[in-house]
């Protein structure tokens, strides 16, 4: 029987590449919070409660504007809908734990945590799955919160033209890398590209804040319609 402590330590160890990546990403998040004039406390709280970089980035960009509650809800649903799927997958490995403990653990679930844990669960039957997950998730969570604070602090202390431009490109570069991971599957890449160009195109007609919601919704619907008509053609 594998000890829970050794599984937790293994989780922490395997999470290190993720921790490095999240370190940079959340420094950038902290930087964004500062440049958009959020308070230090609000910035930390955001990572503490949400712990999802894409959603946080969208929310930070929107705090200056009069954003409707329904927009926040809908944006969260779109960006974080995948949590529904990864949560159901990962929690199937937690069956031995009481429901309340599972619910607590899922609070610190994130996409990168899921990837590491799921890879382990499908390849190695000898770890205690739950405690491995706890190891991976808590390490990345703590790093994310600390990095948010650090990024905020760096921006406050060093008003550098150079630093700000470099920090600002961390998230775009990292998300581009993640997009390319889907290659050679074309549909995710094309959807991402369409999302990219939809912002300036929609921006020609509508105020900026609509582009962020309108683009993805329209692109999603178009893809579904194309898929359905392709299926219909196949049957004929």
């Amino acid at each position, binding site marked *: 029987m594998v000890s829970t402590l050794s599984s937790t330590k293994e989780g922490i160890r395997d999470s290190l590449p993720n921790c490095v990546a999240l370190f940079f990403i959340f420094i950038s998040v902290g930087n964004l919070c500062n440049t958009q004039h959020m308070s230090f406390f609000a910035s930390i709280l955001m990572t503490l*409660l949400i712990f999802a970089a894409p959603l946080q980035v969208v929310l930070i960009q929107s705090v200056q504007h009069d954003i409707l509650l329904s927009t926040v809800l809908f944006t969260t*649903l779109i960006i974080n809908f995948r949590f*529904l799927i990864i949560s159901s997958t990962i929690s199937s490995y937690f069956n031995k734990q009481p429901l309340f403990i599972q619910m607590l653990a899922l609070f610190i679930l994130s996409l990168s945590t899921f990837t590491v844990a799921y890879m382990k669960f499908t390849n190695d039957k000898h770890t205690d799955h739950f405690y491995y997950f706890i190891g991976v998730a808590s390490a990345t969570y703590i790093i994310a919160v600390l990095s948010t604070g650090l990024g905020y602090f760096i921006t406050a202390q060093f008003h550098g033209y150079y630093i700000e431009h470099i920090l600002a490109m961390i998230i775009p570069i990292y998300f581009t890398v993640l*997009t390319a991971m889907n290659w050679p599957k074309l549909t995710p890449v094309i959807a991402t590209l369409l999302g990219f160009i939809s912002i300036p195109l929609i921006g020609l007609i509508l105020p900026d804040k609509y582009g962020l919601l309108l683009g993805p919704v329209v692109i999603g619907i178009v893809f579904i319609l194309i898929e359905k008509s392709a299926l219909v053609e196949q049957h004929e």
Partner: protein
Amino acid sequence: MNNYLIILTAAVTSYSLKLIPVLFLNKFQLSKDNSILKFFNYAAYAMIGSIIYIISLGNMNQTDTFVINYISVLKIFIILLTFLISCRTKKTLTNFSISLMIYAVLFYWFFSR
């Protein structure tokens, strides 16, 4: 709208999405061919693309979303380069570090000296 209300709404919605499977979905299965699932999947990819544009090139405080200048050209170049490198070698951290370093060096060379 108050910042804290935004954070709380997003946090509660997000956490609910994580909890629904353990609380309810044991009762019924999610089919992978579900159109709603696929819609959210595609919309999420498009959202990521939008985020990439907004943070690198756009500025939500301006009405002018077309800021064509040399810095924008460099950023687009770096994004393309990152994509091409990452398609060939699938190592997330390595690709990210290389691209960031190239960007840092080029930006310094052209715009910061």
